[in-house]
């Protein structure tokens, strides 16, 4: 039973085709990776799913209901959360307040400040940000802000979490730590994850399945091992023509 079904989705920006006839499905509790060179349409795909952009064509079904064309806040309420590749913390609010906002709104819609605070603190503990809870978000380092993006999304109690290059710009040690945290969360929570990543090592380690985009089209889909051997992927990434 698939949680998310993307069916022939297309998105153009005044003539420029960003997504062309994309179809794939994500099962409940699955961990799917999205690969592709810069400009392949990965972030556009997330924006279309989360409602930040409207698709021009095709349908998106989440938990058996159409969500294409809905507003981002409505999609969030149904249980889709995304992080932004270029982090968007609420800079003049504390780290704790940022995460409490996720708990206040989103799918959980926590009414009481006390409960939201408890939930936010629990998530901050898990992501190793608890000691910085009272710091203004703009004072965090990049690695901290990337974690904050994840923490804020998780606080919305998503059923589907869309992670957009949360590892980019981190040091190798930080990547290893973040990969552990994400894997742990996927295991312990009833959450389905779709992750865009350039750090191939992380994708191979985390994902059960990988979708490869190139110039707005899906060129390959399969297990990490299959995708790594796929001739189209190799030619898109390395420019080599498979024999």
């Amino acid at each position: 039973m698939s949680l998310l079904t993307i069916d022939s989705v297309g998105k153009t920006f005044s003539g420029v085709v960003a997504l062309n006839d994309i179809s794939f499905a994500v099962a409940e509790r699955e961990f799917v990776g999205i690969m592709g060179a810069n400009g392949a349409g990965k972030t556009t795909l997330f924006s279309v799913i989360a409602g930040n952009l409207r698709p021009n064509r095709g349908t998106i079904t989440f938990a058996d209901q159409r969500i294409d064309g809905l507003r981002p806040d409505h999609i969030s309420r149904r249980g889709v959360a995304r992080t932004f590749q270029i982090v968007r913390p609420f800079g003049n609010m504390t780290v704790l307040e940022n995460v409490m906002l996720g708990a206040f709104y989103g799918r959980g819609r926590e009414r009481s400040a006390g409960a939201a605070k408890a939930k936010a603190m629990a998530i901050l503990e898990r992501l190793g940000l608890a000691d910085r809870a009272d710091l203004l978000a703009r004072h965090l380092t990049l690695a901290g802000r990337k974690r904050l993006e994840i923490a804020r999304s998780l606080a919305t109690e998503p059923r589907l979490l869309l992670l957009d290059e949360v590892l980019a710009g981190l040091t190798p040690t930080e990547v290893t730590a973040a990969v552990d945290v994400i894997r742990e969360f996927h295991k312990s929570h009833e959450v389905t994850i779709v992750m865009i990543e350039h750090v191939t090592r992380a994708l191979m380690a985390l994902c059960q399945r990988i979708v490869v985009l190139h110039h707005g089209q899906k060129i390959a889909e399969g297990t990490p091992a299959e995708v790594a051997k796929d001739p189209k992927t190799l030619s898109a990434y390395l420019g080599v023509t498979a024999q």
Partner: protein
Amino acid sequence: MNPHLNRTLGLVTLVALLAIALPWLGNDYYTGFFFELVTWIALAESWIIISGMTGYVSLGHVVFIGLGAYVAALTWMEIPLWTIIPLTGLSAGALAAVIGYPCLRVRGPYFVILTFGVSELVKFIIVNIESALSQAGRTLFAAPDINDLYFIGLGLAWASVMIALLVRDSRFGAGLRAIRENEEAAETIGVSVSWFKLAAFVLSAIIPGMVGSLLILRSTYFDPLQIFNPQTSVLIVTMAVIGGSDRPFGPLLGVALLVVLQELLWANLPQLYMIIVGVLLIGVVIWMPGGVYGRLQRAFAAKPTAARPT
């Protein structure tokens, strides 16, 4: 609700109760001065609900004062005062809903200019209605005396501070501040940004509408060009910004400063007032982005929280 907020609300109420005594301390001149003070507090505190919290800077708040004044001028002597005041608040709220729906779709300087333009538009609509009715201004007879107006104004000032404090500390207020920090991120985590902005705009218009009815009963003469004067909008913004618009207590400082300044210059150098206001505004924006209150808060904070490496 947290105990700290309860204490603050209690303190504000206590100060307001003590301020009831002010008319007995002095003469009508002093009462007039305190009337000025409480009406500006009510205006600046209402303004920060939309502009301080969401970052949508309204440069047209005089439109709500003007409409409230117009409604009061039309209904004075027709219906009792205690129905006029809520009615002016409701009219201003309704106008905010009508204006806000289209205007809140644009951000930054576009919103600023739109609110300014719309307030001028409404002013000239009312000027034209009045001239079509062959009315050259309206005189309000038998207006309440300054003490009564002061008590109502004090009540509105108290209410505006209470609302600002409660909103600032609420789930709703957190959503508004998230809109200010990053509207797209706020919407993506589930904040219904369009509704929140509209609700904040309406909430910020109601008390200014009621203040409009008090101002017109104080001057006893309704002239649309005077009551819709855009300078009033500019003064509201300046008071809030000088004091610090992020915290409910900020505007109180800005209001106190400018009302005292105005009173001091009134007799000798009235033309200097707006020049000084302009210089103060520029200076504060450049050197004290958090306003006087923000600066004081920083100065009194035991140790500023320093950024620690991750």
